[in-house]
């Protein structure tokens, strides 16, 4: 039992068992796809807005972008935490009522708490990370040395990420990867086009 590998293996088994009881992998997977999608699309919107507003200092773009990333990350984390803990709490209470026992200090209680933590973390971290990825061209702006190229690269990364997320969804559903990828990419293009049409470029 003192062997660290054994302890890690035991811990993994434990998590697997909690997953079997509380079934959070599917929810986490959905949250990962959904919220990464949100993160990328939000950032594509923020980028387009900054481009239309003629923001040419990469530091400003980064500051606005990171602020949006943090906000969407906190939103995902807190929203999922509140929703998931309310839902899990209700489920546990129902099970406790049916079995006439206090389940808090049992495997079931622990599995339920772990589900809340895993789902909230995935919900918070996936939009944070995915939106920061879209910002990468501005972090390396000094190397690129042309803000227009940074904007273009950022849009390209955004659309590629959307395509990637689409293929992930296609993989889950067992259907065509390309058609799902094209659909999510189309959502990104629609966001950009709408921004250009409704928001107009300032001269």
């Amino acid at each position, binding site marked *: 039992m003192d062997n660290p590998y054994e302890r890690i293996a035991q811990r993994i088994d434990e998590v697997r068992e909690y997953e*079997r*009881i509380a079934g959070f992998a599917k929810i986490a997977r959905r949250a990962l796809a959904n919220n990464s999608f949100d993160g990328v699309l939000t950032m594509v919107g923020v980028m387009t807005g900054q481009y239309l507003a003629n923001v040419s200092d990469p530091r400003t773009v980064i500051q606005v972008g990171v602020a949006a990333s943090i906000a969407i990350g906190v939103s995902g984390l807190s929203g999922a935490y509140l929703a998931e803990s309310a839902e899990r709490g209700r489920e546990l209470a129902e099970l406790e009522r049916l079995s*006439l026992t206090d*389940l808090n200090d049992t495997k*079931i209680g622990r599995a339920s708490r772990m589900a809340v933590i895993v789902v909230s973390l995935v919900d918070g971290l996936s939009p944070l990370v995915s939106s920061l990825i879209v910002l990468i061209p501005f972090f390396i702006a000094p190397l690129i040395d042309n803000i227009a190229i940074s904007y273009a690269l950022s849009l390209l990364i955004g659309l590629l990420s959307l395509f990637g997320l689409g293929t992930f969804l296609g993989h889950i559903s067992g259907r065509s990867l390309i058609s799902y990828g094209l659909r999510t990419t189309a959502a990104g293009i629609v966001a950009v086009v709408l921004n250009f049409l409704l928001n107009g470029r300032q001269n």
Partner: protein
Amino acid sequence: MGNLRRLVLDVLKPLEPSIEVLVQLLADLEGVDGANISIYEIDRRVENAKVTIEGHDLRYETIAGLIEENGGAIHSIDEVAAGDVLIEDVITPQD
């Protein structure tokens, strides 16, 4: 204290962890030679199970602890047997 050889429990348990997991956990306990769980009533979220455990030196507290840890509630102890020889219930003319 005489060694406990057989224990038959009436348990109400949630559907998860499933009985196939629980029966293996029970069988792995020290002093247990074998375990059996049969379901006689099933509900939407919980099920009623008859848990039969035999061994050479059963520890009731450990067994009850394991069942409770897995969300089960022991409603009653329906049969017990202890000693060097496993004694079955004897049918008498009154039965």
